[in-house]
């Protein structure tokens, strides 16, 4: 079997445009998703059921249906109920909601990793709840939240490939266009796989750099076990 780079070189403008669209969609949805994830996580941890129940329902619905079906529901059901929907808006909306729910699950876990006693102590000392979150909880949870968030950003990039089905012109759409024009040349398969792989690997690498830069706070439990080791 021959493998000719000229096919990839010729198709490069198509791939490049697709790659840029994928990056833009994932960046926008990633930022919006992270911004939405914090309130969703806090609502799930809320003491009042009027916050907890809607958040839980949203999380369960998103987690228990395929992303593809979510995309179809947003793209076809919203217009029927009077919300006009372009493939761009539907794509970003679907990706954002999907991302927000998965991000919120890791944020919720990270918040829970901060010992409850610290929150109680801060509240008893007269700090308001938002201040407690900002000063006590958020700084300590960073070490716990970054690794899963990194994985979920990679997941977001991979999920975005589905958006070609509602004709968002992203990387997998570019790939399918190249497939059509080159009569399914193996080069196209290699090119698209390598591009996605480079993109996800770059995110993984950047996230592990970020993790190293973030000071890791240790819980009281870990501290006591560390100190015990020093004593010996």
């Amino acid at each position, binding site marked *: 079997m021959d493998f000719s780079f000229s096919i990839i070189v010729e198709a490069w403008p198509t791939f490049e445009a697709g790659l840029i669209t994928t990056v833009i969609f994932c960046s926008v949805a990633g930022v919006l998703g992270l911004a939405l994830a914090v309130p969703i996580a806090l609502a799930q941890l809320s003491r009042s059921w009027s916050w907890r129940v809607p958040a839980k329902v949203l999380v369960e619905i998103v987690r*228990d*249906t395929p992303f593809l079906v979510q995309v179809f529901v947003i793209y076809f059901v919203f217009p029927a109920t*009077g919300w006009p929907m372009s493939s761009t808006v539907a794509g970003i909306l679907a990706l954002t909601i999907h991302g927000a729910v998965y991000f919120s699950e890791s944020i919720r876990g990270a918040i829970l990793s901060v010992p409850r006693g610290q929150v109680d102590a801060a509240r008893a000392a007269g700090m308001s709840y938002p201040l407690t979150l900002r000063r006590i909880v958020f700084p300590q949870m960073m070490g716990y939240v970054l690794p899963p968030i990194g994985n979920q950003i990679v997941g977001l990039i991979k999920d*975005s490939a589905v958006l070609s089905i509602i004709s968002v012109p992203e990387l997998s759409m570019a790939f399918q266009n190249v497939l059509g024009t080159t009569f399914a040349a*193996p080069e196209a398969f290699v090119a698209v796989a390598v591009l996605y*792989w480079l993109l996800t*690997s770059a995110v993984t690498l950047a996230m592990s750099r970020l993790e190293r830069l973030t000071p890791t706070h240790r819980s009281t439990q870990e501290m006591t076990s560390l100190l015990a080791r020093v004593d010996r």
Partner: protein
Amino acid sequence: MTLEWKHVTHALPFLLEGTLATVAVSLLALGLGLLVGIFVMLGRRSRFKALRALTVAYMSIVRGTPLFIQILIVYYALPALGLDIPRFESGVIALSLNSGAYISEMIRGGLMAIPKGQLDAAKACGMRSGLIWRRITLPQVLVLILPPLTMEFTGLLKSSALLSVIGLVELTRRAQQVIGETLRSPEVWLTTAALYFVMCFALGAVTRRLEKSAAEYRL
């Protein structure tokens, strides 16, 4: 526009048939994925450097590229290499190759949980490594990975929706066929989403049960 459900009630048996197909494809992919996962795991601990490098590359490719692309590659690229595979088989192959990479990670976690003393004891009793693997390690690992495996099954139920793209007739494809007939896409998509939700939500409850009993299971 208001939603009209009577078309959907007519098509419900048709959709339920698709649901069954989704379950069947996912179960098949889970079983084959478990096999792939065991082999990938063995490859990673192999004595041969080339085999280890190969499995590392495999894991990296599977986890670094979208499943959607993997499905298209298996469907379009294998025939180009001269292998003629029908769409059902090619869909199941793509899903199980993908799932196998993730399952091998679960097996690795399960292996790490088995106390080293047991393996030493088995060795001291004169058991060969193959026998230790069959009698001591594998049975315990399979129990340990049962909860994450049910979670993987939920994942497969959801990701098998992507097989509709290559025309494999499962729930999502059925939904598209029903829409072709009834032209009522909002109602059909909501029903389809509900069917997936019921399956995955129920499995989630099973997973939580198993997690509890696995936590009680002592090695």
